[in-house]
């Protein structure tokens, strides 16, 4: 690990000012990914700014109009055990339960998970399916970015050097909603070969009023199946609709081959898993 200065900011304003003055600085959340990069000298910041010293970044709040607002410093464990998350968007808790092992879930944070931008990460597909938006701030102000526009490439996001993620906003789902996150991994909770999250909402007549599908592990970024809405909304969902969405998921996927799986295998599996996820989501929505 190369030398860096360690900084504990007082508040968000202080953090933004510091980041705008020090281009080589990086922020530290849980450290579960960043410290590995530091150890291998894959990143060499001039300063490490510890966000954990700022209060209020680890809250989870709900209101009926805005939905769920999650602070970036919530650890995977906090997401998994939050009664609000379990009640209002259980697929996020489902995704959290599939991340690595207890010690890593006790360290890693949802904000760090997103900003690290690993394309196989488990939270992004779930947040894409949920239609989440991210609040980013810098000394110049704030902006809201839909999660599917946040990721740019392998380990790259739209965050500028002086910008930080301060909130994850998840809009409320209609009452009859069901969803799931399905992960294909080599051993339980290892990195996803393919991860698929889906949400389906139905009205009283069983007509689809909301649909979201997010994919992980099949591109340089997590992906949103944009056409899922066009295919499913306003319909009474049948097998052929599910097949169309799964084919579309396969079509937009552009995976790589690595030690975990070949590109061809991932491309086959994203089709299978999208079908399974949608069928399970539909089943859960019908139970509501």
């Amino acid at each position, binding site marked *: *690990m*190369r*030398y*860096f*200065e*360690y900084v504990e900011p007082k508040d968000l304003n202080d953090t933004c000012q510091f980041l705008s003055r020090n281009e080589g600085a990086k922020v*530290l959340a849980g*450290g*579960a990914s960043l*410290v*590995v990069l*530091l*150890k291998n000298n894959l990143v060499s910041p001039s300063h*490490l700014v*510890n966000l*954990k010293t700022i209060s209020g970044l680890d809250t989870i709040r709900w209101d009926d109009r805005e939905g769920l607002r999650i602070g970036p410093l919530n650890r995977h*464990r906090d997401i998994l055990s939050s009664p609000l998350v379990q009640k209002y968007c259980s697929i996020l808790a489902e995704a959290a339960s599939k991340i*690595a*092992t*207890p*010690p*890593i879930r*006790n*360290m890693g944070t949802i904000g760090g998970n997103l900003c690290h931008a690993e394309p196989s990460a488990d939270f992004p597909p779930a947040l894409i399916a949920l239609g989440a938006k991210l609040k980013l701030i810098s000394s110049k102000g704030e902006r809201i970015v839909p999660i599917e526009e946040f990721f740019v490439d392998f380990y790259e996001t739209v965050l500028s050097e002086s910008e930080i993620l301060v909130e994850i906003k998840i809009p409320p789902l209609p009452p009859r909603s069901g969803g799931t996150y399905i992960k294909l991994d080599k051993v*339980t*909770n290892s990195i996803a070969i393919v991860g698929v999250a889906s949400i389906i909402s139905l009205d009283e007549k069983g007509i689809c009023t909301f649909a979201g599908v997010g994919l992980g592990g099949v591109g340089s970024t997590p992906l949103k199946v944009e056409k899922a809405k066009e295919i499913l909304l306003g319909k009474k969902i049948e097998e052929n609709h599910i097949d169309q969405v799964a084919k579309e998921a396969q079509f937009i996927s552009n995976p790589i081959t690595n030690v975990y799986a070949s590109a061809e295998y991932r491309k086959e599996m994203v089709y299978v898993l999208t079908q399974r996820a949608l069928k399970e989501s539909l089943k859960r929505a019908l139970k509501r």
Partner: protein
Amino acid sequence: MRKQEIQLEINGNTYSISVLPQRTLLEVLREDLGLIGTKEGCSEGECGVCTVLLDGFPVRSCLLLAVDVRGRKITTIEGLSKNGELHPIQNAFIEHGAIQCGFCTPGMILSAKALLDENPSPTEEEIRIGLSGNLCRCTGYVKIFKAVQAAALR
């Protein structure tokens, strides 16, 4: 290079030390404080031999910067025995032969302690999940799970 003066609370004792900000908790425990019960394995957060408890939760000491854990309660394997008596989980490991080479043992025992503190009577599946962050290269898992089950009954 600038060292920082920090205080760490480990096993109920307060240690005042001067560290560079890039020192990990694992390095400080082993090299600065002589607490070598915590082991170094992969040093990348995969193997779990460096597990310590942070405010009661198992974490990877190889992925934590020492400056980042000021004011937190750290428990290492040295902190489990009381008045020369081993902790019941430690005794259960000995009685069930849940130790072969012993390198994973401190981390296994600390993960087991955190699990039993939260869930005093876990099922075998819950034990397997609770210890899933700790690898045993001797593959002595069955005896380890039995030892944790036995400790839960005490």
